[in-house]
C-alpha cells in the first residue's frame, strides 16, 4: 500500500471511531437558497462568531426538525497537520471526505449528515469552509450549483459576475452597491425554479464581507475580463459551458454527482445568457448590460 493511500485510509478511519452525533451544546441554523443547515458546535466562541458571520441567514427554528444539512463539529487535541497541505477529496459511495491540514470532514449526501473534525481552537473560517463544501454538494442534489461569482440584483433581475480570485468580483460589487442590491461578492447559489434559474445571495462572502438573503431570476452571467475598454462579448453555449464549469465550486470526485453537475450546467447555459464582460473599474459596464437587456426586452416584445 502506498504511503498516500495509507494516509487517506487513516484519515477516513478516524471517522469510524467518532460517534454519529457530537456533544455540541450550541446549535446554529441557517438557510441559504432555501437549503437549511444546522451546525452543532462545541464551543460558545465558535457559536458567537459564526452567528455574527451568518447573521442575515439565520434560521429561527427552535424545533428539532432536521435540516437539509446537519453538521456535527468534533474537536481533537492531537493533530498531524503535515499529511494534507492542500485540500484532498475522496468519496466512498455517498460519503464524501475532505482532508486539509487543519480539518478532516465527512459529508453523506443521502442523509445530509456531516461530521467535522479539527483542533479545539480552530478558526471559524475552517468550519465555514466545510459549510461551503456541504452546500456545494447538497445544492447539486437540488439541481443547482455554487459558483465563484458576485450576484447583483438590478431592477429585480439577477446578474452574476464570475471569475477566479482577483478577477474583479469585489470591484464590481463595490461599484454597484449604490444603485443595486449586491447579494454576494464572492459565492452565489444558483438553483432552478419554475423553468428558470434563480440566483441567491450567500453568507460565503469575500473581501466586502457582504451577503444578503435575497434572490432574483438570473438573466445573465458575465465572466469578468479586466480591460482598457468596456464591452460585452456574447459566448456561444460551448464556451459558456466551459467557463461555467470552470467557475463552479465542486469538491468531489464522485462520478454520479459530477455527471449530474455537468447536466445541470448544460441545461443552465440554455436558460440564461453568458458573456465575457470587458470592464474598467467604474460603473460604465452597467451601461453595456442595460443596453444588451433593453435590446432583448424590445426584441422579445
Amino acid at each position: 500500500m502506498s504511503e498516500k493511500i495509507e494516509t487517506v485510509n487513516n484519515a477516513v478511519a478516524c471517522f469510524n471511531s467518532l460517534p454519529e452525533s457530537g456533544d455540541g451544546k450550541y446549535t446554529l441554523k441557517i438557510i441559504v437558497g432555501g437549503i437549511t443547515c444546522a451546525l452543532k458546535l462545541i464551543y460558545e466562541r465558535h457559536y458567537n462568531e459564526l452567528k455574527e458571520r451568518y447573521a442575515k441567514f439565520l434560521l429561527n427554528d427552535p424545533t428539532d426538525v432536521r435540516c437539509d444539512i446537519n453538521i456535527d463539529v468534533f474537536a481533537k487535541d492531537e493533530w498531524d497537520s503535515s499529511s494534507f497541505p492542500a485540500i484532498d477529496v475522496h468519496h466512498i459511495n455517498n460519503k464524501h471526505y475532505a482532508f486539509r491540514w487543519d480539518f478532516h470532514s465527512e459529508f453523506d449526501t443521502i442523509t445530509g449528515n456531516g461530521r467535522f473534525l479539527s483542533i479545539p481552537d480552530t478558526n471559524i473560517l475552517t468550519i465555514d469552509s466545510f459549510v461551503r463544501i456541504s452546500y456545494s454538494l447538497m445544492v447539486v442534489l437540488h439541481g443547482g450549483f455554487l459558483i465563484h461569482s458576485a450576484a447583483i440584483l438590478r431592477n429585480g433581475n439577477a446578474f452574476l459576475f464570475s471569475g477566479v480570485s482577483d478577477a474583479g468580483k469585489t470591484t464590481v460589487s463595490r461599484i454597484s452597491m449604490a444603485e443595486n442590491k449586491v447579494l454576494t461578492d464572492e459565492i452565489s447559489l444558483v438553483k432552478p425554479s419554475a423553468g428558470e434559474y434563480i440566483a441567491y445571495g450567500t453568507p460565503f462572502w469575500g473581501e466586502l464581507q457582504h451577503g444578503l438573503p435575497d434572490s432574483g431570476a438570473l438573466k445573465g452571467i458575465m465572466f469578468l475580463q479586466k480591460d482598457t475598454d468596456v464591452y460585452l462579448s456574447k459566448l456561444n453555449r460551448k464556451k459558456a459551458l466551459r467557463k461555467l464549469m470552470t467557475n463552479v465550486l465542486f469538491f468531489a470526485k464522485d462520478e454520479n454527482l459530477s455527471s449530474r453537475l455537468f447536466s445541470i450546467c448544460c441545461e443552465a447555459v440554455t436558460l440564461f445568457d453568458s458573456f465575457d464582460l470587458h470592464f474598467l473599474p467604474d460603473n460604465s459596464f452597467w451601461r453595456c448590460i442595460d443596453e444588451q437587456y433593453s435590446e432583448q426586452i424590445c426584441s422579445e416584445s
Partner: protein
Amino acid sequence: MSSILNKFVARADNIAYRTVADEAVIMTPADSMLHELNEVATSIFANINGKRTVRELCKLAFNEYEVEMARLEADISTLIGELEKKNILQLSDAPIN
C-alpha cells in the same frame, strides 16, 4: 494502425456528454475534465455504438466526407486512440454491449 481498425469501439459507460451547437462536449467524471470535439469528430463519435469497428466508422465517414479512405483511416484511428487514452472510449476485439 491495422490492428485498431478491426477493433470494436464503444463509449465509456461513465462519461457524460452533450452536443452543443453541433459539437460534443464530453465530461470524464473521474477527473471532472471537459473534452471538446469538433463537428467532424462529433459525427464520428455519434456513430460509435459498441457494435461497429473502427473500419466501419471509417466507411460511414467516407460516405459523408470527400476524403481519401487511407487518410480517413489514419485520422480516425488517431482520434479513437486519443479518446481511448482519455477514457472516453473503450476498444475490444468483440462487440461491446
